[in-house]
């Protein structure tokens, strides 16, 4: 989904080089076979071309060796009506296609898009790769190196809202389809029997006197003073941070609300980047342009502890980048660009490269 993993492999490689060793290839933990995805939802890249795929229908997360290695491609990528081209490739029309997520392999700059091919209960999951040569390939999930971890399921189906990889852990947010409770799972990778997921309930405070469980819509791992934090955007629409180290089995996590995004800002996707020595995050939303928030001083950002009154935005201030209207999926392509999926007013979906604002 996001470029949240971009610096992780680089950091690993850097650390390995400094130590005079090369880090183990994580694809060695994967086994060849048929990856039995029931659906292909949220995506997040890890090291060594490993793509983590949330499978909401199957209640699982897959680690798939995309085999996508090499040097980062340079240049931009732009394909109009990419939905029609993907649909043609999988033998469908654009109206039979649901685009679920976009992720860029930070090692190569190639784009990966998870789709549902068909809209009924028997819709087939697929993941397509789009290279800088604009060639569209469908990953052969029946013959691929992969690993799978089943998420604990209380009986009802669960939606998976976001997947990310950070420092040896796969982070998965979700919610049930029969209750409003939110879960965030931290799953050590490589997946093993011993590496059971940690599942915690997330609460965001600052609703006056009360606090409720609420689903995380999208999130990114984000380093603050060397400590990994989760920046989570909620549907209803606070932006919340909490340290990753707070994710302990059986404990409830209380996030610190650092911004309120307000009406019309239903968050869809989020990336972080650096420009002119400063850190920013971008949040795509369903109605307005992209929201851009500077994160300088985020470690000191005071928590919003009183109810918001009169619709006044509280906490970190954001600006709206109106030129990015229609963006519903994005990932960081390189230091200066984001790769985005834009739904046009005519209903087409374009893949485009935009300069980070």
């Amino acid at each position, binding site marked *: 989904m996001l470029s949240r993993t971009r610096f992780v492999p680089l950091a690993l490689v850097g650390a390995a080089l400094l130590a005079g060793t090369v880090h183990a290839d994580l694809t060695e933990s994967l086994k060849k076979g048929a990856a039995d995805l029931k659906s292909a939802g949220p995506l997040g890249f890890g090291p060594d071309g490993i793509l983590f795929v949330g499978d909401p229908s199957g209640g699982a997360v897959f680690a798939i060796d995309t085999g996508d290695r090499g040097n980062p491609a340079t240049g931009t990528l732009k394909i109009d009506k990419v939905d029609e081209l993907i649909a*043609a490739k999988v033998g469908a029309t654009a109206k039979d296609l649901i685009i679920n997520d976009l992720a860029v392999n930070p090692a190569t700059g190639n784009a990966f898009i998870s789709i549902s091919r068909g809209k009924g209960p028997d819709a087939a999951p697929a993941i397509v790769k789009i290279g800088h040569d604009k060639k569209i390939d469908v990953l052969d999930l029946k013959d691929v190196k992969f690993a799978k971890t089943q998420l604990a399921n209380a009986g009802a189906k669960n939606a998976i809202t976001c997947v990310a990889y950070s420092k040896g852990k796969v982070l998965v947010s979700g919610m049930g389809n029969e209750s409003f409770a939110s879960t965030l799972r931290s799953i050590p990778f490589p997946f093993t029997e011993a590496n059971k997921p940690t599942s915690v309930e997330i609460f965001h405070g600052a609703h006056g006197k009360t606090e*409720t469980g609420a689903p995380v819509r999208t999130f990114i791992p984000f380093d603050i003073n060397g400590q990994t934090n989760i920046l989570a955007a909620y549907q209803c629409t606070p932006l919340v941070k909490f340290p990753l180290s707070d994710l302990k089995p059986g404990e409830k996590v209380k996030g610190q609300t650092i911004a309120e995004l307000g009406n019309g800002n239903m968050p869809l996707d989020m990336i972080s980047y650096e420009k002119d020595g400063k850190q920013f995050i971008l949040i795509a939303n369903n109605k307005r342009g992209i929201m851009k928030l500077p994160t300088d001083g985020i470690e000191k950002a005071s928590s919003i502890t009183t109810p918001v009154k009169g619709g006044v935005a509280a906490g970190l201030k954001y600006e709206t980048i109106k030129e990015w209207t229609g963006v519903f999926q994005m990932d960081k392509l390189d230091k200066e660009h984001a790769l985005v999926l834009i739904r046009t007013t005519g209903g087409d979906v374009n893949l485009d490269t935009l300069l980070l604002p």
Partner: protein
Amino acid sequence: MIAKRITHEPGLAFSGLGLALLIFILALAGCAPRTQTVSEPSLTLRFNDGNNAFEVLGLDARNLEALKNADWTQERWTALLAVHVGTSEKDKPAVVGKHRVDGILHFDPQFPLLKGVRYQALFDPSQLPFPPADAQLAQCTVMLPTPLDPPLGVAWICPTADTLPENQMKFYIHFWAPMSRGDAFEHIRLLDSDGKRIESPFYELAGEHWDERQQRFTLFLHPGRAKPGLKLREELGPVLEAGKQYTLVIDGNWPDADGNPSKKSFRKSFKAGPPELQPVDPKKWKITAPRVGTTDPVQVTFEKPLDDAHLRRMLWIIDRTDKRVALRIISTFDHETRWGYSPAEPWMAGEYRLVVDRSLEDLAGNSVGQVFELDQFRVTVTEQNKNSTLLPFTVSQR
């Protein structure tokens, strides 16, 4: 050698354009042919829907052998035999799949053909390892039929009551048949008493909340408008307000899983009542035990309406050995205020217990011993850590 004579396959629509053959086959419901064919006596391009494969029959042994051993790129295979959605537009990629030779040439699309979508296969004999001198293109168009009967649309909506708390959390929309996903929120709207559409009333998760068969859609009202102190609520106010009348409308353009809309809209009108702010309290429930030797349901009457989906998986019965009593059917009655559990085998005399999963919620998200809006970090209830509550009852001769 490809013969120039064209033959008909009985019962199939047919037209010839020189040797460039075009057959457009609309296989109607109930009379879909197993094979749909464009043929010459020695060369046939067809779709075999039993195998979900396009096939070329009649290739000579020399070509078959060469194809079997060919180490071709995908592009090379596609030049010989390709399938496209719609027409064979060169600017759109061919359908992904695998070519193989097994007595005949096959193309197996990676995904099964969709109903109602037109596909065009194109076979170019000039691309064969040993092309015939008079090679001509062959085309075959296939469209699998969609059901002729329109779908029935919405069956019912839970909760079924006409008055709902103003902090109502969700609706379950049940359909008669599997539906399509992806555009659900284009087909649902909430109207006020003047018929005016209410702005942003729903929690619109892109992945949508469906059951496995896509016959039940969970519609969450927007949480940001339910919680006091959130900016969204300050800007737009709550979705529902006590004393006011509302109508939930599901339009008839929502396509079913085959892409067909029912053309029948469904409306559920209800009045908002006071907020529900109490936890679910099993101590207030009344259990009516069944008679021994029957498969009558044990019936439980609740203190208020509970979540219909939760009632079907968060309550069950165990016997004195803690073994789960095999279920025949669960029923809910009286607007989800009563519940019945009918066993697969007749009740034996003795003690049983009703197991209550403490996640069981009412209509507003309050669960057993816990209200939805609560300071989670100050509550110190010893039962908080328990997953279930047990309520005993006795089955006896009466």
